[in-house]
């Protein structure tokens, strides 16, 4: 009771509850706090659930359906069947089961979306960090180049790039990746600008760390929140962009069951067999909605100040 030195046993005993509480607080890592906030957001949890299911389906697609016999095999005798017990969502113009194709197609949509955004993020974040950290001439050059790249609307740029490189899954990823660079450059630069003059960065310089090390290990980790949110939301728009390009026959080549490509086939039967168009579109919408919901939830939980 009389001992007041901080940290001594009696101090702990005296203010037991308080000290314990602060210990509990200290143990709560930042990631834990973010997860706790995210968990309270119902929309984000639904989104995350859908994404986990889709990821599971994509990874194990080969175990769920056989690509050669159940996804791409043509059987004209079963063509254009309406949804029923045998074919849950019906069959397309070549007698292929739409449900199986949608299941397998998740793999294309998710991987194209993910890879494209990864390409955009790595390039965009690197240049954005350089522009924000060094300022001056480097910043001017990078930002002007960025203005040029963002002056052409994304989907148009995608069309031009894919038709130049030729339609293939890889080129689709590249095209969408390139069109998502400008957003990442802008966001990273803005957050680096906020951090670069803080005292801890100054002390990094004072102890002689290399500039690359300061950017990679000390500045970027503190700019992660907006980049994570942007990545999630960009995956959503990348999936739409990929299906749009496939719809224009500029994406994943047939007979692969890409959702946009399936829509492109369905378009020819829009008058007579609308189910060919309905289901792939719903699949795209649900996937994109899931990423958007997760992105929104992440934004709220990563920066509680922005919470609305």
């Amino acid at each position, binding site marked *: 009771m009389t001992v007041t030195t901080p940290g001594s046993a009696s101090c702990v005993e005296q203010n037991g509850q308080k000290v314990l509480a602060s210990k509990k607080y200290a143990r709560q890592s930042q990631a834990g706090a973010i997860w706790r906030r995210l968990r309270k957001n119902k929309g984000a949890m639904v989104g995350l659930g859908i994404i986990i299911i889709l990821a599971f389906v994509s990874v194990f697609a080969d175990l769920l359906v056989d690509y050669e016999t159940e996804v791409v095999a043509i059987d004209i005798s079963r063509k254009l069947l309406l949804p029923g017990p045998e074919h849950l969502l019906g069959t397309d113009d070549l007698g292929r089961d739409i449900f199986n194709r949608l299941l397998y197609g998740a793999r294309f949509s998710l991987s194209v979306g993910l890879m494209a955004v990864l390409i955009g993020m790595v390039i965009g974040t690197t240049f954005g960090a350089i522009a924000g950290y060094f300022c001056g001439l480097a910043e001017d050059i990078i930002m*002007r180049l960025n203005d040029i*790249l963002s002056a052409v609307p994304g989907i*148009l740029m995608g069309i031009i790039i894919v038709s130049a490189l030729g339609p293939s899954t890889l080129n689709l990823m590249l095209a969408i990746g390139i069109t998502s660079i400008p957003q990442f450059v802008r966001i990273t630069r803005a957050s680096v600008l906020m951090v670069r003059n803080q005292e801890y960065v100054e002390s990094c310089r004072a102890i002689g760390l290399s500039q690359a090390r300061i950017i990679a290990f000390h500045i970027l980790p503190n700019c992660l929140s907006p980049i994570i949110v942007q990545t999630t939301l960009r995956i959503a728009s990348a999936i739409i962009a990929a299906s749009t390009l496939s719809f224009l026959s500029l994406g994943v080549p047939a007979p692969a069951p890409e959702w*946009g490509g399936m829509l492109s086939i369905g378009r020819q039967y*829009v008058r007579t067999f609308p189910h060919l*168009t309905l289901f792939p579109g719903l699949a795209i919408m649900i996937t994109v909605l899931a990423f958007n919901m997760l992105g929104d939830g992440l934004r709220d939980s990563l920066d509680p100040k922005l919470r609305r």
Partner: protein
Amino acid sequence: MLRYAIKRILLMIPVIIGVSFLIYFIMDLAPGDIVSVTHGETSLTEEQMEELRASYGLNQSVFVRYFNYMEGFVRGDLGTSFITGKPVLESFLQKLPATIKLAVASMFVSLLISIPLGIYSAVRHGSVQDNVAMVFALLGLSVPHFWLGLMLIIVFSLHLGWFPSGGSSSLGGIVLPAVTIGTGLTATLARTTRSSMLDVIRQDYLRTARAKGVSERTVIMKHALRNALIPIITIAGGQFAYTLGGSVVTETVFAWPGVGRLIVDAVNSRDTPMVTGCIIMKTILIGIIVLIVDLLYATIDPRIKAQYARGGKRK
């Protein structure tokens, strides 16, 4: 303010040079050229093909061709289409009204839905209606345009027969494409309106207005909305520019004779002057609209006008 506008217009020059070079260069990378696209199936000999290429100037290096093209551009000549033989500018201006018409109609749809929805959500912040409205907005953001277009065609054109499924010959033809594009725009704009209104709605001067006995309607519509307008106008302006530049797919689905389809067709037939010229014109158009939006701020917010008067520098 005039100085600021002139400075902004001058800053567009390097962007136009960069964009035109980028597009010209990518188009050159594409496999095949105009000769192989138009004469690939014919029985021309290799020499005849080479001769044709030379007549299009394709035997020169891409840099020489680009330089020649830009020399023409400075004199106001955007080149001649490889396919139709018509000046690019003429074709562009011919298709532009349809695109502008669609963009204006889409913006109209978007503003009509999103601003009331955003205000309603903000006023009822946290309520069930607010959540429903925001889920609706998120849905609008998640639906692929071309699919929504097809669904609208199935329901409103094939089943109900209310509107034509494509073309711009009749007045009703614009409804479905405008709703298609407008839905996507509504999502972002409603969310912006809501968050911008939420920023304003709890400020002290609104409480003062209420205390003075101003009706709630006037408080929201006049005192709050006016101060919440800046972000809304920024987004709406950007969207209008985007619609002028990006409604490629919707134009394709609805067979709308606009600039988007002109460019896609030109890309497919490797018509480099047409693609480059149209994209230059689009860049200029988008740049001017964004500038007008920036200048519009000044009329809405006197504080920004004062900022422009100081030479465009922030405090």
